[in-house]
């Protein structure tokens, strides 16, 4: 037995486990996506059991691509993921730089900053949509009402009253509406995931070389130049990692979308799968395959990007 055979042999069970874990669901999804398979049909009861005799070829794929929500779901997926990435990275860098300086109560502030990350996505969504973003009961409604009251009370003020009486009464934004539900999801997920970015950037900032900064100070670099030419390049790698991990995670957002508007005006591929899966397992599986393809395209782009920063 050569020296490598035994280790290989010992690895085999784990590798086989992993393959089963991956290949069986993928294989079943592929299989279902090529047959007619529904959960309930009175007219065609034979479609309720998966079988090769119900072969449909690329019919399910065609059906999904022609459905009215498909392109919108892909577009919306990318919009939500892109917006969240943009906001979390910018906020994350700013907050991390801000709390990297020593100040009293630093430990407490750090713990509190991380805490949103420990809240379950569904709970996060319920809290935000009902307690903060709700146009009547939430902070959103209360704040708008408060502003309206202040303006109304100014109408009778001497001298400037006429000026305030020209102001319109403002209406709170309803975040469950078709036009706004995507923003609600972006806001709440950004709130939940910014701490993750902060955590990663903060640890990276602590490894920043102090002598480099001192050299830069002597070289005449101000605070902004130090940030621009030293800190930002230093954060390049963690930013790439945060972007990659979050992109993969947020492609599969579901709970927030369901809770905010039940997909009204705001669908992504996982949500579309969920809608099809109410009855049409074949179409749901085909959508699943599309989601796999989309995730892979994005992952390849991201891996290239991360790989490039890691090579430097």
């Amino acid at each position, binding site marked *: 037995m050569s020296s490598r055979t035994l280790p290989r042999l010992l690895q085999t069970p784990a590798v086989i486990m992993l393959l089963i874990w991956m290949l069986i669901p993928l294989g079943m999804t592929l299989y279902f996506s090529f047959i007619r398979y529904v959960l309930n049909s009175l007219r065609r009861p034979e479609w309720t059991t998966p079988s090769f005799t119900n072969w449909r070829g690329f019919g399910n794929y065609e059906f999904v691509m022609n459905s009215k929500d498909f392109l919108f779901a892909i577009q919306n997926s990318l919009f939500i993921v892109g917006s969240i990435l943009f906001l979390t990275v910018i906020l994350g860098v700013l907050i991390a730089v801000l709390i990297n300086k020593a100040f009293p109560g630093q430990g407490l502030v750090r713990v509190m900053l991380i805490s949103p990350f420990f809240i379950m996505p569904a709970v996060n969504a319920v809290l935000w949509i009902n307690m903060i973003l709700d146009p009547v009961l939430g902070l959103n409604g209360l704040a708008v009402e408060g502003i309206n009251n202040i303006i109304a009370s100014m109408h009778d003020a001497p001298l400037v009253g006429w000026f305030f009486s020209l102001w319109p009464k403002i209406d709170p934004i309803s975040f469950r509406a078709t036009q706004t539900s995507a923003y609600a999801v972006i806001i709440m997920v950004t709130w939940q995931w910014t701490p993750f970015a902060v955590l990663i950037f903060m640890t990276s900032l602590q490894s920043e070389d102090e*002598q*480099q900064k*001192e*050299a*830069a100070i002597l070289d*005449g670099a101000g605070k902004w*130049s130090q940030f621009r*030419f*030293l800190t930002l*390049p230093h954060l390049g790698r963690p930013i790439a990692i945060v972007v990659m991990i979050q992109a993969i995670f947020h492609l599969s957002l579901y709970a927030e979308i369901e809770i905010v508007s039940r997909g009204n005006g705001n669908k992504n591929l996982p949500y579309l799968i969920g809608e099809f899966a109410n009855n049409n397992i074949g179409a749901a599986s085909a959508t699943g395959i599309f989601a796999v393809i989309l995730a892979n395209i994005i992952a390849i782009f991201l891996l290239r990007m991360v790989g490039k920063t890691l090579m430097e």
Partner: protein
Amino acid sequence: MGRIVLENVVKRFDETEVIPPLDLTIEEGEFAVFVGPSGCGKSTLLRLIAGLEDATAGRVLIDGEDVTEVSPSKRGLAMVFQSYALYPHMTVRKNIAFPMRMAGMSEAEQNERITAAAKSLNLTDYLDRKPGQLSGGQRQRVAIGRAIVREPEAFLFDEPLSNLDAALRVGMRLEISEMHKRLQTTMIYVTHDQVEAMTMADKIVVLQAGVIEQVGSPLELYKTPRNVFVAGFIGSPKMNLLSGVEAAEYDADTIGIRPEHIDISMKSKKGSWEGTVGVAEHLGSDTFIHIHGIPGCDPMTVRAGGDIEVKHGDKIYLSPQAEHIHKFSEDGLRIP
């Protein structure tokens, strides 16, 4: 340009006084070396001059101008750090250009200075590489290049050679000395290595616990150390220090004799010490013999010629050259 004066400078971190009130003048064009054991405050002193630390009290003057409250970048000093402190994501060219870019210098002027610096430091072939692709010595040269292009009033070196291997250190030492001769700019160099101090300095400042023990040229320190600490610190191998009966013979509390000022013989002579050879280090040019059994100093180190044949356990007789005996009083100060 570049006369640096410290007046009554004090540095405290909370309650601990790192540097008690201290006065020092470094003349224009001088190569001054701060030397002392680790933790003696020599780096803190350099950082005070650079402006990276604020003085708790006292004044720092450069060319007669009080710069105590002036920001580091406005003091016109350039510093070379022990860890090189190069910007890792920038090429060598951009690293060297950074201070000029911050100063808003024109592109043409920048390129001219970079080319000149790269040529004098043998970096021309490496300008487009990143610091990670360079060897330790090359990185150090880039750091020096970054300092040169600013044409500073004075260069500050913070243990710049400590991270290099021995052979490279000797080479870089020469390069820096030659650079000083060429530029004639004031340089302040911090090191814990007294060999670097002796070989490079015009003026050595020996520090211990934040206090200046002695200031002088290398040979002054070697010939007339002001106290026991300087006597033991300057010179390699170290001066042998004897106390007790042997010292009392010379009416001193402690006497010191350098290894190169002891005559050896295999036969007893008047006024000589008797000992046995412990270890003999044959360097070819010299032999350093460590001798045991001499009261008040164990082992005593002696420098002998390269071709002497001694071995472990040999009896040996030592007679110090009377004119080279350093005498120190009870409080450690030199007795003239």
